[in-house]
């Protein structure tokens, strides 16, 4: 059983690391990197679900009969795009924040806000 689920558990560890970075770090960019790890771990999870032992990539060929599941791949393609889109927007926000406040540290931002 341990081996059966090994992959999933690794995913969980990755996820937790990502999530930890997101909520514990002060730097806005670092948070985003964490968010990226977090999202990617979910991608890995999906792909793991789709894997079939002994299967090959789901491209039809006359010699193969066992394929891995194409559906998760499709979903994750979409999810990756969504992820990068989110990142792009988030980074744009960070740049604007930097220009407006002069810092990208969460705690400093809070202080600046409280002061005014």
């Amino acid at each position: 059983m341990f081996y059966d689920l090994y992959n999933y558990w690794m995913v969980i560890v990755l996820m937790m690391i990502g999530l930890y970075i997101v909520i514990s770090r002060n730097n806005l960019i670092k948070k985003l990197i964490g968010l990226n790890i977090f999202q990617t771990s979910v991608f890995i999870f999906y792909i793991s679900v789709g894997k079939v032992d002994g299967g090959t990539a789901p491209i039809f060929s006359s010699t193969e009969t066992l394929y891995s599941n194409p559906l998760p791949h499709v979903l994750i393609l979409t999810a990756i795009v969504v992820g990068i889109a989110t990142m792009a927007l988030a980074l744009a926000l960070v740049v604007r924040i930097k220009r407006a406040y002069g810092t990208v540290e969460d705690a400093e931002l809070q202080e600046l806000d409280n002061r005014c």
Partner: protein
Amino acid sequence: MLNHLPILQVIVPLLAAPACLLLNKPRLSWLFACFAAVISLLISGALLYQVQQSGVISYMLGGWDAPWGIEYRIDLLSAYVLLIVSAIGTVVLLAANTSIRQEIDEDKQSVFYVLYLLCMAGLLGIVATGDIFNVFVFLEISSLATYALVAFGRDRRALLAAYQYLILGTIGATFLLLGIGLLYSLTGTLNMQDLAERLPVASESATVYTAFAFMIVGVCLKLALFPLHLWLPNTYTYAPSIVTAFLAATATKVAIYLLIRLYFSVFGADFSALPIQPIFIGLGLVSVFVASTVAIKQPNIKRLFAYSSVAQIGYMIIGIGIGSSLGLQATLLHLFNHALMKGALFLALAAVVYRIGSAERSGFNGLAKQMPWTMAAIVVAGLSLIGVPLTVGFVSKWYLVLASFQSGLWPVALLIVIGSLLSIYYVWALVESAYFGKAAMPSNVSSSSAANLSPIKEAPLSLLIPIWILVLANVYFGIDTRLPLEASATAANFLMGGGS
């Protein structure tokens, strides 16, 4: 064309968005966006009618049958929510031109309308679809658009608010994604209908519970249920007023819809191995009390009503938590009603911001003399928020209390009522300062500089008309309750009976 209505509902604003971009003239973009919004409003009306006449409409995208392709599935509930979203979206958009011209640089205005349409299309897409992964995709469309819209705010804190919202929203969405993945790994399908059929087979497994928990938490992040509401006040406060009006009236409503859909349709109402109902009721009550109490002290009125939104969401969650058909009906009613009243309130605030430049409480002193129509709108919508008879707010409160009585939850009923007492406090304080407060300006500012400031005038008609459309809707549906009542009753019964 009639059988294509479900997809047109979403596609019209969706494709209007890039078209809007090509126009590149703010005024033209606005007109075009309005045009698209009105069309989608008409479509949603037609859809509701169709569903009432002939039951659930199912539309296969790409011509592939349901579990393989993506299905659009419009039942009474989704038709009802579609109508709310497109109606509010349209009315707010009508008011947008005036307010936006003042709050946003001219060269960005057409991009604003593009994003607005995208956001609206995303929300409509969430409601219309019958495919759970498709929900995720459209959720992201609307969320990304929302983040950008919020960042339009003039205050630099808007950026920070958008960033926070983005982080939390993405975590929420990723949780949802994870939940979807877990469900998929168990059932091998993504279609909601199909999921509902296949889940009972697997329902005793820990994986289903986990999936359920993650999806619910993900959605609750989006709908700002109490401990997860932190993003909402900042977002609502610093976003452009129009955006706030739109978000408050629609985005959280769609999240509630999603919660209902997941809870009742996908997992089934009798999925009761977890003590989910007491949790919902408890969280709902805490939301009502904490948020209302915090609201009382807010110096910024936009923020005040943002907290009040959190409280109102609490009411809806209580309705779901009660778990009876009547409770669900109360939630659905409140969904509709809250959209009307918050739409009206935030639009009226937009008008105030338009004239006096901020929504600080001090600015409201004596404002009733200068902006009588706007303030009257705030009063009526505020009364509705409190739940005074002859306004819509009363109807939903009535049903909520009735539902808790019927389920034997007397203390809950009493707490709900006491909760609405808190709303009297914050609404009345505002009304009082507007009507009886002395305008602070003339006394503080020396007469010479007061002369320089042009006197505050009533908001322009382009803002007043949409505001009063919503206000009158508040009153009209408070008196003639048949439409929302019937729709919500049937939808609730359908969900309770047919969903499990």
